[in-house]
């Protein structure tokens, strides 16, 4: 199914006079094949997900063995007695042959056993269970915030600057969002803490304790994404505004609001949703630094702590969980897109 016109505009130059016979177009595929194709695509995506998950699992297992020297020695410090190091190593099973360790590790992960912390002896799974919800809440709130603010902003900018109208708005929008995109989350965090929390005292500077403590972390996480999505929405909207069906809708003299909400918005949604998914994964990563700044009791704060303290089992477990979340989000975005947009699978095949 590679009809070249599926998402193409009419050819820029119609055939010169005199025209030969126009090429015949393949007939549209019937409903049933479409469903089957969608299913096949879904299966393929799930397989891809499983393979990536396996790679991730291997990588996180390999991490502890790739550390130069003895990780237990590194963790306990040079002053620790040899017996303690040996005892720890044995308790962790690090003295077993590698294949056996791998099987044990995978088996453990599959049954929810991520090992125990070098430092506190706490099961890593408990650490994760306690902190994961806090990280997810933050990332989801920031994603929602970003989409709610950025999509209308981007559409507005597109409509205002269509065809090079209002150069002033276009330049300001481009410069401001371009600058806002470039500033990383942790700098926003520091600035927000310094000004709004320490300077003005409007919000608590750190911790997770009541609704007010959410404001600054969510803001810090979403400002850059708002700028990014607004830019993308603007470009997508501009492209939509140039299509024939929008010209036709204009020829029908539809009111502007209806034109933009009903004819333009749904077609920009695919790109926006993809963005939303990618955004969520990038925000989950960005939250590491934001959590650190705001002492937010999430996974990000823990991963930094465990790396600096050389608590490798915790670092290993948390990285694994982060990776898995990213993979799951990507899978969901793919599946939702496949279901939503009848043409996305065609693009996939063509790609």
């Amino acid at each position, binding site marked *: 199914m590679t009809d070249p016109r*599926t998402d193409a505009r*009419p050819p*820029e*130059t*119609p*055939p*010169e006079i*005199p*025209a030969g016979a*126009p090429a015949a177009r393949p007939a*549209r595929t019937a409903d049933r094949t479409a469903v089957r194709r969608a299913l096949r695509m879904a299966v393929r995506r799930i397989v891809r997900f499983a*393979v*990536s998950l396996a790679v991730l699992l291997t*990588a996180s297992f390999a991490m502890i063995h790739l*550390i130069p020297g003895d990780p237990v020695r590194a963790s306990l410090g040079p002053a620790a007695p040899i017996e303690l190091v040996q005892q720890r190593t044995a308790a962790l099973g690090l003295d077993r042959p590698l294949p056996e360790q791998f099987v044990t590790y995978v088996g453990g992960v599959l049954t929810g056993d991520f090992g125990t912390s070098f430092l506190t002896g706490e099961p890593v799974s408990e650490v994760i269970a306690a902190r994961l919800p806090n990280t997810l809440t933050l990332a989801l709130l920031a994603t929602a915030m970003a989409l709610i603010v950025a999509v209308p902003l981007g559409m507005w900018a597109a409509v205002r600057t269509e*065809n*090079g*109208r209002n150069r002033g708005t*276009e330049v300001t*929008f*481009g410069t401001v969002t*371009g*600058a806002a*995109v*470039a*500033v*990383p989350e*942790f*700098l926003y965090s*520091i600035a927000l*803490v*310094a000004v709004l929390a*320490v300077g003005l005292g409007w919000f608590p*500077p750190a911790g997770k304790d009541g609704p007010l403590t959410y404001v600054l972390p969510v803001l810090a996480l979403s400002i850059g994404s708002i700028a990014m999505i607004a830019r993308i929405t603007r*470009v997508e909207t501009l492209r939509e505004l140039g299509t*024939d*069906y929008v*010209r*036709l*809708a*204009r*020829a*029908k*003299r539809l*009111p502007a609001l*209806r034109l933009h909400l009903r*004819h333009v918005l749904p*077609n920009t*949604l695919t790109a926006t949703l993809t963005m939303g998914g990618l955004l969520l994964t*990038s925000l989950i*990563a960005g939250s*590491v*630094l934001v959590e650190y*700044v705001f002492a937010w009791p999430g996974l990000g704060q823990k991963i*930094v702590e465990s*790396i600096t303290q050389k608590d490798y089992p915790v*670092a290993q477990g948390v990285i694994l969980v982060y*990776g898995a979340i*990213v993979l799951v989000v990507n899978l969901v975005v793919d599946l939702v897109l496949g279901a939503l947009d*009848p043409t996305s699978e065609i693009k996939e095949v063509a790609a």
Partner: protein
Amino acid sequence: MRVDDNARPTGQSEAVPDEGGQARKAASRGVVWRSPSALIGGVLVAFMVVLAIAGPLIWGEAAERIDAGAILQGTSAEHPLGTDNLGRDLLARVLVAGRYSLALALAATLIGAVLGTVLGALPSVLPRRGARLVTGLVNALVAFPGLLLAMFTAVIAGLGARGAVLGIGVAIAPGFARLTQTLAASVAGADYVAAARMLGVPRRRILARHILPNIAEPLILTLAQSLGGALLGLAGMSFLGLGVQPPDFDWGRLLFDGFARIYVHPEVALGPAALVALAGIGFNLLGDTLARAAARSSAGRQESARTEPPRAEGEPDPDAVLEVRDLTVSFPGDSTPVRGLSLTMAPGEIVGLVGESGSGKSLTAAAIGGLVPYPGTVTYGRLRLGGADIAGMSGKELGTALAMVFQDPMASLNPALRVGGQLSEVAVVHQGMSRADARRRAVDRLGHVHLPDPAKQAGQHPHELSGGMRQRAVIAMGLMGEPRLIIADEPTTALDVTVQRQILKLLREVVEETGAALLFISHDIAVVGELCDRVVVMYAGRVVEELPADRLAAGAAHPYTRALIASLPDLDTDRSRPLAGIPGTQPAPAQVGVGCAFAARCALATERCRTERPELVVHGPHRRVACWEVTS
């Protein structure tokens, strides 16, 4: 400047829809560089470079000067950003740290670029299996957040500057790999690579001689953007305590130290934060600019439009459905694709507007429908639809009285909305019908254009319909109101021959039933001759001949019209062979000279043709022609 048949000036529709670049006409590199973001980016990056070179020379000593009497101070006249735990001046330290921060970022970027380029170029020279493996790996890595990759690498490589640089390098690599892969795949498929392969050139040499040079430019652009990313990433790592360790310091490390004191002296953290932010902004804006400058190499000028004042003549024709006098469409850059066009149409009349692409026929249609894109200016002496001035008509009147059909039925229907919904919309919005009534009418109209199962098709999305069915649906959409005029712009060009015939038949039927006039725009004079009552031939923005369709074969007078007809295939012509066209090309709208625009291609052209433009004058009953050789 050429104006294509989609009524968009060149440089707009073809422009890559990059950030901020869409539909901007001033496209030369010079203009790109003069935009504020380019300016800000350039200044900031230049500042950073100067700082990296000169900073340690000027403030190096001050940054290390220990002052036991001024430990952990906040802002003061002597120390604008305060002092650290050894009493060293923080402003000096921030300015000095620029060199180290930039050097680390450069190192990380180079590592990432080398790693990524190798990883990305591999699949194009590896055997199939290996190529798929590497591609899969890159795809998996690209989806992975860079910071996590960096942390993973840093855990293995150990805390400190080396680990952080390696980590950021690894984090940057997948992006480079993906880019190289895409580019290399396109180059590797090129003929000269295939030729080199056949000649037995070793793979290594193909990569070095043929593939890498062709992808160098985009790679360098990405390099610039990655540098900014690496700088921010390293600052983040050091800020978390995973990067640079004392006694060394970069901006991130200063942030780390300053952040511990943020509750007491917020300015101590804000200083380095501001510099990191400025550096990030600078590199990002500059990278954007570089990318944009590369994306547009074709230039166009923007000038104010120059239009001649139109003149109206005579009284409006009360019976005409459409009356156009002296319609002119112009674009900035001295381009006037439609020049003083006049046209009158009676109810039920089918008029064909023919011409090559670029003759201005589609823009004429767009101008009548009020759809000329923004920088275009439309002027006219008179433009009346159904006896009323179009300028004074409400959206409701115009939306129901005028129906338009475009070339590509797929592009004319919104892929996200059901067919029935798109039809009923007009009735709901303009005629105040209830949704249910509107839907009933939509189904009725769809049946009217002979869709096999209108109720079902109304509930379907456009992609579920065949090309012919879609074009029928678009026509049905025009019939939702009470159209006085239907403008069909190349409605059959995208369809195959059988479907083409059916659509033409349908259009004729519709005209007979509704009494609407049909303005049929086409480059195909054969189709026009078959369908229309009257033919209007356009060349380079002007009407050159007007005549009844049945006189086309025998009575065409203008050399251009005659050439069009002569170039038509007859029954004996082999249809699979390319057809003989008219030698030469039509002048672009900005290049139409003083004389007859067709002179360069005309066999009958004389000296007079080149210096004086022939007016459109009456030449027999219902006929007008603009040609010196015919009329004098």
